[in-house]
């Protein structure tokens, strides 16, 4: 699980020279992180030329994020959207691109895109268009993808995210990244490469699933900023319900565009990094690529405008096969789809079937509280620190758990939060449990905290009880030992264990 808050970087990097020893020539890859002087000013300003005397580098990072829309059926057909189903079982004739089929737009997908656009402060285009993007690949049976290249559904938004200035999480800085646009497009099928058999197996279950492509302008400067921005987007999408945004299931895919340049000079050549499967890897991939480019340029090399894949095992980026050379997608308007028209309360047509009408204002009124608003409310209502509110929202269900405990206990929220974040959360993490799987219910914890408040038990005792409940077997054994001592060895240990476990499961 990625850390939601990361250290900020000032945007200026410099590669270190090894002290004393001569610098080796162009090696197989960038120097290990320890040797890299990340001369970042944590406040985000430019850093003056430091001891190494090298001109500083400014990395530039932009992101293209594809979020799978959470809907029952696909963007242009009525086949089901579901992860892990028998191959080619969720495929309609249209998805397989059989002749004589036509796209029919799914209303829910449009609503999801409008919600997301509004949440990201975008202007919603009341008229948007669909286009065809042509390229050949086995998992794209039509030979083109229907997308929105000319006029997408939403443009010119922004996303605010926060970073910790230092490791202690006591100082947070807010940054903003501009959202260039959000467009609706089709997902492709899945290719399984079989190297031994020299063939590709194609499963079209995913072909045609609705995607929202969110394009973030190159306003970020390092892996941690990119990771924090994506994490916040993920939380927003999950709050809206427009996408479940689980990266592990391919519902959220991120491509990073990375380049470096000296201050005052034009932007450098950028590379595109793909195959990033988690937020943690996103930070690693971006940082690696920045470092690789800096080293390449400082050794007199050049950066190719290419697509690279992130190899998570090796922790590096490698050039991608099949993507050499600039692609010409031969964009053309999708002739089978008229423009998509959206309305607001002012422009609402009087005599139209309301199932055929999407009202932007209606959707806006029903947007849920976004994560940033939820955090503010938690801080205001309970007097907890902003950092606490971040952690509460970062774990699925934790904020609700906290509020539930607060309701059921006399202990002040400011004290409760410590028990939630330090004790409960760390135990859950240790045993790889989610909040929903917590053996300690909010009722139980509230009960325990009440006992503590009434001074009927000590703090240490409370911690021990929590530990046992959370599954700490060592403490359970200790209890058995205590019982044995009390009964002077006359009790049956197995029976004692059974009785204790029964009590604990109540």
């Amino acid at each position, binding site marked *: 699980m990625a850390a939601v808050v990361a250290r900020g970087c000032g945007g200026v990097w410099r590669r270190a020279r090894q002290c004393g020893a001569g610098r080796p020539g162009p090696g197989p890859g960038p120097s290990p992180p320890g040797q890299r002087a990340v001369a970042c000013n944590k406040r985000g300003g430019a850093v003056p030329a430091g001891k190494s005397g090298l001109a500083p580098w400014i990395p530039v990072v932009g992101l293209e994020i594809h979020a799978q829309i959470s809907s029952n059926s696909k963007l242009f057909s009525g*086949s*089901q959207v579901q992860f892990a189903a028998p191959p080619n079982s969720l*495929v309609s004739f249209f998805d397989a691109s059989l002749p004589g089929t036509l796209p029919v737009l799914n*209303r829910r997908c449009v609503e999801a895109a409008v919600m997301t656009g509004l949440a990201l402060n975008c202007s919603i285009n009341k008229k948007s268009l669909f286009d065809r993007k042509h390229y050949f690949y086995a998992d794209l049976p039509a030979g083109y993808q229907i997308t929105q290249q000319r006029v997408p559904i939403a443009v010119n938004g922004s996303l605010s995210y926060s970073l910790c200035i230092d490791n202690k999480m006591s100082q947070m800085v807010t940054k903003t990244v501009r959202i260039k646009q959000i467009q609706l497009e089709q997902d492709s099928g899945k290719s399984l490469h079989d190297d031994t058999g020299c063939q*590709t*197996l194609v499963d079209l279950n995913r072909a045609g699933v609705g995607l929202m492509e969110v394009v973030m302008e190159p306003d970020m400067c390092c892996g941690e900023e990119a990771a924090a921005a994506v994490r916040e987007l993920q939380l927003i999408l999950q709050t809206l319900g427009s996408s479940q945004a689980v990266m592990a299931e391919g519902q959220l895919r991120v491509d990073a565009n990375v380049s470096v340049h000296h201050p005052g000079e034009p932007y450098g050549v950028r590379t595109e990094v793909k195959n990033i499967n988690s937020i943690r890897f996103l930070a690693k991939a971006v940082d690696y690529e920045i470092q690789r480019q800096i080293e390449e340029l400082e050794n007199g090399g050049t950066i190719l405008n290419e697509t690279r894949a992130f190899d998570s095992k090796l922790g590096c980026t490698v050039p991608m096969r099949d993507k050499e050379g600039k692609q010409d997608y031969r964009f*053309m308007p999708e002739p089978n789809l008229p423009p998509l028209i959206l309305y607001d309360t002012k422009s609402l047509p009087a005599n139209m079937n309301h199932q055929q009408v999407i009202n932007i204002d209606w959707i806006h009124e029903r947007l849920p509280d976004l994560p940033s608003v939820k955090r503010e409310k938690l801080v205001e209502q309970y007097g907890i620190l902003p950092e606490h509110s971040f952690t509460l929202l970062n774990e699925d269900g934790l904020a609700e758990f906290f509020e539930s405990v607060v309701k059921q206990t006399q202990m002040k929220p400011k004290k409760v939060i410590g028990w939630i974040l330090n004790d409960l959360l760390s135990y859950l993490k240790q045993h790889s449990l989610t909040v929903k799987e917590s053996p300690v219910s909010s009722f139980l914890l509230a009960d325990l905290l009440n006992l503590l408040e009434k001074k009927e038990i000590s703090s240490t005792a409370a911690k021990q009880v929590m530990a046992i409940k959370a599954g700490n077997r060592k403490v359970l054994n200790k209890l058995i030992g205590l019982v044995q001592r009390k009964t002077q060895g006359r009790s049956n240990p197995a029976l004692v264990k059974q009785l204790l476990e029964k009590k604990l499961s109540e």
Partner: protein
Amino acid sequence: MRALSLVRWVRAGRGPPRGPGSRYTGNGGHRGYTGHSENRHSEHRPQDPPQKVSVEVLQHLEQLALVDFRDREGVERLQKAIQFADQLQEVNTEGVEPMDSVLEDRCLYLREDDVTEGNCTKELLENAREKLEEYFVAPPGNIPLPKLEERETFLQGS
């Protein structure tokens, strides 16, 4: 639709418009059939002898569209197709917004988000030449066309 985008594309690969020796006057001209001065339409008029499509352009087209202009006949057919599409230049479209589709005034129908299709694996796989346990079988990745020198196409001769 494809012919027009092909024409525009090929034209883009032809290079800059002809120089001062051209019959075409610089101020947009009064030749009725190309009444507008946008560069991309002003380079060529239907009555001029058709410009040859360069080898580089042909090669690029072959890679993009995965076709093989195997002989002189193939290349000539392409040139005739471009000539045919060029007739569109006779129309003065100055100040007219391009039309994407005759459906542009229609309402885009919105479908309810219900599952109504799918579950026809057997039918879909019936037409597949090669299959493996309900997967379609395809060659590994895109197989690039062999390089110009290795192929037997007419392009070598031009």
